[in-house]
């Protein structure tokens, strides 16, 4: 019986990458198990391995996707702003955001020190931020990029304001 051979892929690869990116951004790389990925994407384990090769490969693909579809468009929007204050505020509000918000920061903290390929992607994302701030801040762009990264990090620990305060 060969009915399973050459069966077309019954799932949307892009959607699976997006789901994986959101999981990695929420639970970190180590905190996301293959069980988590199988459950959240609804894809059979065998297919997941067949398409992506490994969990690390899927993480790299998710990070690449986050750079291309979130970081770069945001950077392009920031680069269009010439007012320094507005560019900085926008960057702090929107950099490394989206459906997998924080994926870049998390990858920088967790994986980049041990994984040169992750480190290269993180560096690419930070360089995009620096370039985006150059039209508004010139030579101060690298320093301001550090300010944005620091602000994004602090925002992760900011407590939501209670809605019921007397």
């Amino acid at each position, binding site marked *: 019986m060969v009915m*399973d051979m050459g069966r077309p892929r019954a799932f949307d690869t892009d959607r699976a990458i997006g789901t994986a990116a959101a999981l990695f951004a929420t639970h970190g790389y180590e905190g996301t198990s*293959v069980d988590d990925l199988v459950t959240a994407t609804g894809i059979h384990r065998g297919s997941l391995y*067949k398409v*992506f*090769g*490994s969990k690390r490969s899927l993480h790299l693909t998710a990070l690449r996707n986050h750079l291309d579809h979130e970081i770069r468009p945001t950077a392009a929007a920031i680069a269009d702003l010439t007012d320094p204050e507005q560019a900085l505020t926008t960057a702090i509000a929107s950099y490394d955001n989206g459906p997998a918000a924080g994926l870049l920061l998390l990858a920088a903290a967790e994986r980049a020190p*041990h994984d*040169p*390929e992750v480190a290269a992607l993180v560096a690419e994302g930070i360089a995009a931020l620096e370039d985006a701030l150059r039209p508004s801040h010139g030579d101060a762009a690298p320093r301001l990029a550090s300010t944005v990264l620091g602000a994004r990090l602090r925002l992760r620990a900011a407590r939501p304001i209670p809605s019921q305060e007397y």
Partner: protein
Amino acid sequence: MALISVDRDRDLMTVEFQGLDKLWTLKSRLEIPLAHVRGATHDPGMAREPKGVRVGGTHVPGVITAGRFRRDGERLFWDVKNPDKAVVIELADAGTYDRLVVEVDDPRATVALVEQSIARG
């Protein structure tokens, strides 16, 4: 238990089966060209997957899965007693197996070794 090492001179990944595992798997070692290795993942949940049809080796459910299995048209090689230490190695379609599932002493170190050896440029 298996010992996975990488021979960079010969561009090979070798999987050596320790002690009685040679008997259970009917193999003493596997040699896979690094070019056919797509990745390695620590995956304790893999052991709960249906094993498919045993082609050669030993299968005592809940105790040991060892040897050649076939499932959904894919050829798998297993050597797992303790699922917590199972590593899944995905292979390119050119070889004898599509996927290896082997128990190793240090899954984190094994995954790092294999993944570094095949680092995508």
